[in-house]
């Protein structure tokens, strides 16, 4: 697969179809990879593909620095490619302005990351080029098991669980920076009139930050899990994201990252949406 990837990337650059290829390169350790930006066909041999290709490289697509870099091609796993769908829907990129190279993927990490156990996009969708064999999707039946497990506890326990988790947050914002869908030029925590979210990483500030981060991803999160992976405190951020994905699916029948034409759930409505909550 690596050779095929390099070959394709080389072709794209040689033909001038793209100006740069964003892919994975060799990391500082055999169990890591590092994003590489390749501009010359002869550098395409730096591209690698292995089970340590964690990063969701689509998060680079919305960067201001990239606006002047020409047309990019981006190497994506199936999960990552979902972000392209959302970015297009939210008018952050034009689909035709990026070439998506999808990689068939049997999961990343050693042991496999949690998200890979319920992956239905092992053969990536919505890509311009797919490299690698067709791989059967896995069942998503049990994907919310961890969410349900926490829900089984009573409110006070859940509160305690999250309070302890969030108290470890150091507000480094790696979750935000790594997220392909956190592309706001000015994040809500950087707005200080009024200061909506306390900037300090004390438990109260952390709670406000994490609840807002999750809420802003409602109906948008594509489940790539980068936020959780990059968190230096190992806070289970995906639990909250998954909970919201579950709510959105149950209530509005929407799953993020699949259909480029379906309206965004949090920017649309149906008159017959549930009124159960309201007195």
């Amino acid at each position, binding site marked *: 697969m690596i050779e095929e990837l390099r070959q394709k990337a080389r072709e794209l650059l040689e033909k001038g179809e793209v100006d740069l290829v964003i892919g994975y390169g060799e990391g500082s350790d055999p169990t890591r990879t590092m994003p590489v930006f390749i501009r010359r066909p002869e550098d395409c041999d730096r591209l690698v593909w292995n089970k340590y290709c964690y990063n969701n490289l689509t998060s680079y697509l919305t960067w201001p620095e990239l606006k002047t870099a020409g047309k990019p091609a981006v190497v994506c796993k199936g999960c990552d490619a979902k972000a392209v769908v959302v970015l297009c829907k939210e008018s952050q990129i034009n689909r035709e302005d990026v070439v998506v190279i999808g990689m068939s993927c049997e999961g990343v990490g050693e042991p496999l990351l949690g998200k890979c156990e319920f992956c239905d996009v092992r053969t990536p969708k919505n890509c311009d080029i797919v490299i690698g064999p067709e791989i059967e999707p896995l069942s998503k039946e049990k994907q919310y098991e961890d*969410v349900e497990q*926490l*829900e089984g506890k009573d*409110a*006070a*326990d*859940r*509160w*305690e*669980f*999250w*309070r302890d988790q969030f*108290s470890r947050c150091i507000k480094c914002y790696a979750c935000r920076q790594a997220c392909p869908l956190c592309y706001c030029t000015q994040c*809500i925590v950087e707005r200080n009139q009024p200061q*909506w*979210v*306390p900037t*300090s*990483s*004390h*438990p*109260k*500030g952390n*709670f*406000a930050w994490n*609840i*807002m981060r*999750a*809420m802003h991803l*409602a*109906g948008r999160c594509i489940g790539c899990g980068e936020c959780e992976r990059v968190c230096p405190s190992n806070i289970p951020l995906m639990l*909250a994201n998954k*909970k*919201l994905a579950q*709510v*959105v699916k149950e*209530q*509005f029948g929407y799953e993020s990252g699949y259909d480029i034409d379906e309206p965004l*759930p*949090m*920017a*649309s*409505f*149906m*008159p017959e*949406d*549930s*009124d159960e*909550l*309201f*007195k």
Partner: protein
Amino acid sequence: MADNDWKPKIIAFVCNWCTYAGADLAGTSRLKYDVNVRVIKLPCTGRIDPLFIIKAFEQGADGVLVSGCHPGDCHYTSGNYHARRRWIVFSQLLRFFGIPEDRVQFSWVSAAEGAKWADLVNEVVGKVRELGPFTAYHEIESAEAIS
């Protein structure tokens, strides 16, 4: 503060066109309702950011009430429809994080429903009074965080 001195603090975020008018009607109709609610008027429920609720708790609220026009009656046509989706999701998130459901109440109160407003406030205040002060949230005060 001794427990028997405690009065619940309820913040109500209401829309200008329906619920605020409804609350007004409750007043002009001389309906009596609990005084522990502080009303904040906004143009529309669509304007109410989930952050408002968080901020209210941060600043010491024990309960929050959000209310606007009935679906279909929005002054801006669809503001409350959007708000409805937002609250459906947000209430689930709050629940997931262990914030008691009775501390946050969402409702629709029209300009004609002064009595409903009074009842609603009484009910919310009653429930929050039962729950007691929201110390769980207030105690995660800006404590020193070490490493």
